[in-house]
């Protein structure tokens, strides 16, 4: 084949794919990844027993009522947690985003505002780098078993996450309108409400709704460490080998996530 017809990217493509595979191999060793143990006779037997327990799902009226109540509590934990998270995230975002810097207008940001923005960013890193499960364990010790611990755990972790991503959305969006307002003498918050917010409101809302859906799932997990809601019931039923109850709750939970997905899709369509 004449050389000009050979794909010049081929060698480097093969090289980088092999490098990726070589780097991936230790990860599998480290995690003791041996999927074939799933199919050994002993493992198959216990899997079968566990799954057989799921049938039939328990559908007594009294139990369904309990599940419905816990389900509602799970949504309530997620929603209250998100509300508190917004209270944390919004001021921190406004503090940290360089899109609203007045001193950076003609060139480089001054040192004091630069330091404040950086410090706010560190605070956001601290908030979100502690997993919500750990926050929940901490708060279960402080405020006792129950939904309050779940609400606080979600508020802190999600506050950190929202603050970071909001800041990134605001900085990556077109800044022409905001900059012009600042250059014409508007204040930072005024420029935020008249320039930055209308510019990126759709993206901010869509991300917030998605995070709310994540919070619902996460509040179910937090139940396992005693932070109330559906997860706590699931934990109880699993410990008592009540497979039927677990099955019902899993089905209800799937419906819940599906519903949240539907709601967020509708909301995004309305806002587009």
């Amino acid at each position, binding site marked *: 084949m004449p050389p000009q017809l050979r794909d010049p990217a081929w060698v480097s493509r093969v090289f980088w794919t092999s490098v990726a595979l070589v780097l991936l191999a230790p990860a599998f060793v480290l995690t003791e990844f041996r999927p074939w143990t799933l199919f050994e006779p002993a493992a198959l037997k216990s899997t079968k027993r566990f799954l057989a327990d799921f049938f039939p799902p328990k559908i007594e009226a009294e139990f369904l009522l309990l599940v419905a109540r816990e389900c509602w509590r799970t949504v309530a934990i997620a929603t209250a947690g998100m509300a508190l998270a917004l209270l944390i995230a919004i001021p921190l975002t406004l503090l940290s985003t360089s899109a609203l810097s007045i001193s950076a207008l003609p060139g480089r940001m001054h040192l004091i505002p630069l330091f404040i923005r950086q410090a706010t960013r560190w605070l956001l890193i601290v908030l979100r780098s502690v997993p919500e499960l750990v926050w929940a364990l901490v708060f279960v010790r402080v405020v006792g078993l129950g939904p309050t611990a779940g609400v606080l755990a979600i508020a802190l972790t999600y506050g950190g996450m929202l603050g970071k991503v909001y800041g990134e959305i605001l900085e990556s969006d077109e800044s022409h309108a905001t900059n012009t307002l600042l250059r014409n003498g*508007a204040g930072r918050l005024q420029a935020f409400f008249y320039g930055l917010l209308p510019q990126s409101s759709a993206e901010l809302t869509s991300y917030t709704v998605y995070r709310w859906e994540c919070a619902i799932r996460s509040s179910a997990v937090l139940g396992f460490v005693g932070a109330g809601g559906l997860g706590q019931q699931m934990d109880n039923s699993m410990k008592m080998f009540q497979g039927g109850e677990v099955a019902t709750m899993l089905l209800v939970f799937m419906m819940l996530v599906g519903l949240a997905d539907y709601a967020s899709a509708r909301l995004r369509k309305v806002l587009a």
Partner: protein
Amino acid sequence: MRINVEGLSARHRAAAARAPAALKPVTLNIAAGEQVAIIGPSGAGKTTLLHALACALQPVSGKLALDGIDPWQISVARLQKLRGRLFLAPQSPPLPPRQRVITAVLAARLPRQSLAASLRSLIYPIHIAEAEAALARFDLANKLWDRVDRLSGGERQRVGLARALVSSASLWLVDEPLSSLDPSRAAQAIDSLTRSAREHGATLITTLHQVDVATRFARVIGLRDGELHFDLPSHDITRERLTALYAQHEHELHGAAPTPGDDAPAALYCR
């Protein structure tokens, strides 16, 4: 507002430090209430000069005084207050696509409004009549309640100009106000702009691509390669002077404005 510029040179922020300054040392004095057009071929430094006057760009060297105040000698807070007395209209209209026209126009009031009043105005606009009157000057009164992304490029540009009328600025710096307007709209827009500036007692400085429009201003400044080529009353502008100013850029002198007409959609950033 009175402007004194002494040996001012400036460079665009994105430019490399060793690149030659887009604006070489320029000395200028503009009295309060004067109306000045800045012309010159592309890349002559028109926008850089405008941004330097608007305190949007810190000069590399030289001195700028607005009403006798050097904006780069005062604190950031006082500078921001001073910026409230300037109105810089960039070439592409700075309007968020989802915002309504009324909100976009009233945004020019922000510097003289408290935060509380600004937020109240978002819930129910406070100065509707003022915005309507400003839009009417540019034949856009019927677009008052429309969303910005429903407007054509030319309409958006005129909304950007109408903003100047509701600001309380005493210095209007307008960058290429006619770039997406057809000739008849352009004439009307420049009439409205100059008349309103006179009524507000504001100094008006405009960069222009259309030489014939520039001669409607009392004073015309010609820039070329970042240097002051001439600074003359408009009746002294001769064909020869223009030809010299635009040498090697003749198509800009004779041809139409570089950007297309009224119905061309302006660049819109939507996500």
